[in-house]
């Protein structure tokens, strides 16, 4: 019953997010602030992880190809497919559930604990629209982060490939360009938009509806990370089944 209650409350929150909008002059500032916090603030860690994981994917692929009949350019091909289809949209989203998700839950949760949300409600402000909507809009720029993750993942793979001596630059680039299917990019970005929605709303839900004090803020952050990750993995499976099979 608790699960059903939570799901119902979550969808009611989504509905409320679009009702009674906050004044545009105020909302604009909130959106820019959230873009700065959630998108630009995540670029560093996303770039770092993407570059090195791209390198690791390349090394693992190269080391597992010991048949001389398999062409060397397959390393670039495998890296591209892994990074574009799964690593950038899904793996980075799980990392973002930890970074951005816990930030959203703890910041909204702290506002709940310190009665700042009550203060908004007493003033007659739609607190859900005020707090969650700017995060939702900011996260619509999330595909920009994922594009950078894709680029740096492939670049990291290239660096590992060349400096590790697994294949030549030409072979790697040939592999990256081989059998390129643009629908895979569409698939990756559809997933990215869905994950962006989850990353903005599930942590907001856990922050907004939390009860208790400072300890509960920490617990809510952990719970929001777990459920955001679970939903990302589940929807990743569903979308893959729907779009690729």
């Amino acid at each position: 019953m608790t699960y059903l209650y939570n799901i119902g409350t979550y969808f009611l929150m989504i509905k409320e997010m679009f009702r009674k909008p906050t004044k545009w002059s105020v909302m604009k500032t909130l959106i820019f602030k959230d873009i700065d916090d959630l998108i630009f603030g995540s670029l560093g860690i996303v770039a770092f992880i993407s570059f090195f994981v791209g390198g690791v994917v390349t090394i693992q692929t190269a080391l597992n190809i010991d048949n001389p009949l398999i062409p060397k350019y397959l390393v670039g091909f495998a890296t591209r497919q892994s990074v574009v289809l799964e690593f950038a949209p899904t793996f980075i989203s799980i990392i973002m559930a930890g970074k951005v998700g816990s930030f959203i839950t703890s910041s909204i949760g702290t506002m709940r604990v310190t009665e700042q949300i009550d203060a908004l409600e007493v003033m007659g402000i739609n607190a859900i629209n005020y707090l969650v909507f700017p995060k939702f809009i900011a996260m619509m720029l999330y595909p920009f982060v994922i594009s950078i993750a894709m680029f740096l993942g492939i670049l990291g793979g290239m660096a590992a490939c060349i400096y590790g001596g697994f294949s030549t630059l030409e072979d790697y680039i040939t592999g990256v360009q081989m059998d390129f299917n643009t629908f895979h990019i569409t698939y990756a970005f559809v997933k990215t938009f869905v994950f962006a929605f989850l990353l903005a709303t599930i942590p907001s839900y856990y922050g907004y509806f939390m009860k208790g004090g400072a300890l509960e803020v920490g617990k809510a952050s952990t719970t929001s990370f777990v459920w955001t990750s679970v939903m990302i993995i589940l929807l990743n499976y569903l979308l893959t089944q729907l779009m690729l099979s």
Partner: protein
Amino acid sequence: MIEVKDLHKSFGEAHILKGISTVFEKGKTSLVIGQSGSGKTVFLKCLLGLFHPEKGTISYDGKIYANLSDDEKRDLRAEMGMVFQGSALFDSMTIAENVMFPLRMFTKQSKSEMQDRVDFVLNRVNLFEAHNKMPSEASGGMQKRVAIARAIVNNPKYLFCDEPNSGLDPKTAIVIDNLIQEITDEYNITTIINSHDMNSVMEIGEKIVFLKDGHKAWEGSNQTIFKTDNEAVTDFVYSSELFKKVRQMYLEERQ
């Protein structure tokens, strides 16, 4: 004027408010007092529309809150000012931005008009120098004054204060009490204060509602509270030796 009739509120099995009826008049400072757990905060949150009572009505100048549409409720709330126990200042904004917030949300004033109004109210609460400080840099007393400034900046009709001088030293507490009293008189608003502080009761309690176990156990003013024989009130208000002596002296003077 706020009129409360037969207000009931429960949380699960716990029946917190058990049929409270009272009237809070315009231009008067009314205090709701009672022991911890007597239902004061729940009562205040019902008045603010943060909790929905199961039974009973609350009307604001004749308008019954429960009968209003969502938009009308929001409009009504824009006419309320609230000073929270912990001040509830937005910690991502400066003091001036906190005070300007209701103006930015609900008025179409130009930036200079808003700035003038913020200057005026910050001056009114003697905080003009604190404009650019963050709430975390302000003392407890300053934060309370900022909360009062934010509550009155949009000329509210109703001002609610939840234990406005908790955690403050006696001198600062008196400053806050006097400030609330002056603002109530100046702006002719309906002010309701939840308090434990007996100094506040004696100083500014033009109307006092005493809650006990979710019931209204007594109603009067800072004048009549000295004369009451209500055991629940005397147990609570005159629990300290100091206030017992004050009461004794008051009664002796009157005889």
